[in-house]
């Protein structure tokens, strides 16, 4: 085996306080380049971590019948961070690209998740459609965080709701993933929503 994989160029592990007994997780999803890694980095107490996952994907477009059955492996990054919430509870945030072809990784990532925060760039709403399909197909409750890259573009919440066909009670909040307070507010809004879902 290649021993260089174990070289010390990674940050040393920061262990959890001894009293922490329970872990929960929330997934941070959204299309390519929407700010998932930035968001996780803003809130994480540890240097955000990443694993490289090998995925099997169809090598031809799904709608290309001649390519049916052709497969290749590709690598996709799983990003995550950690927030110790109390003396005995820790929250993990996991993020990965929202593409149908990474459905295997999604399965792993969403097992036991409390819910999902869906990052959306209002200038690229159509890129969110496949992600929202994935979130819904995994039965995750979610909130939408609009990560507006161009501050001069004021988004109309109603347009976003309509374009994404959101349920009336799905929260839509504004968020700058580079800003800690703004990111935390989006996460709190999701948790409040999950609480109302519990009834």
């Amino acid at each position, binding site marked *: 085996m290649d021993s260089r*994989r174990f070289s010390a160029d990674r940050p040393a592990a920061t262990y959890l306080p001894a009293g922490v007994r329970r*872990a929960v997780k929330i997934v941070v999803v959204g299309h390519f380049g929407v700010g998932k890694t930035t968001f996780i980095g803003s809130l994480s107490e540890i240097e955000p*971590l990443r694993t490289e*996952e090998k995925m099997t994907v169809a090598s031809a477009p799904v709608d290309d019948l001649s390519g049916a059955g052709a497969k290749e492996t590709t690598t996709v990054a799983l990003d995550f961070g950690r927030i110790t919430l109390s003396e005995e509870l*820790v929250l993990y945030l996991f993020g990965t690209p929202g593409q149908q072809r990474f459905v*295997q990784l999604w399965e*792993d990532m969403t097992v*036991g*998740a409390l819910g999902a925060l869906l990052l959306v760039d209002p200038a690229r709403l159509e890129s969110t459609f496949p992600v929202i399909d994935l979130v819904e197909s995994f039965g995750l409750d979610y909130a939408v965080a609009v990560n507006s890259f161009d501050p001069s573009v004021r988004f109309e919440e109603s347009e976003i709701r309509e374009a994404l066909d959101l349920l009336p009670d799905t929260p839509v909040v504004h968020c700058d993933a580079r800003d800690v307070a703004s990111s935390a507010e989006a996460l709190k809004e999701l*948790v409040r929503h999950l609480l109302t879902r519990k009834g």
Partner: protein
Amino acid sequence: MTTPSEDDLVTGDFVRSYVITGGRRLPSATDLSLHTLVTLAPDRELPRRASPEVRAIWDICGGGYLSMAEVAAHLGLPTAVARLLLTDLAEQGHLLRRAAPPPAQAVDRGTLEEVLHGLQTLFG
């Protein structure tokens, strides 16, 4: 789209390129999820013919609790590989894990309230 059985096959082959699995069924995320907390059990001895990966896991898990995803990331291993190695160590009694987190539907209100309260305490 690929069918689940084909995915299993290819993932299996991939994991086998890292470790000897003995043809066993690979553990899934429901067996050991990414956020399950693990640590080395007290007073255990490293198995004599431990692979470099197992030695690295031994070192990192000796210091306290971490999630299985953190173990994978610190070792530069894909999570499927880390999951298999950690499951083996747990079965051999070398590894402790905190009770597996409940599935989302079963998470109680109290836990969600703790999450919200924790976020408010930390971030205002």
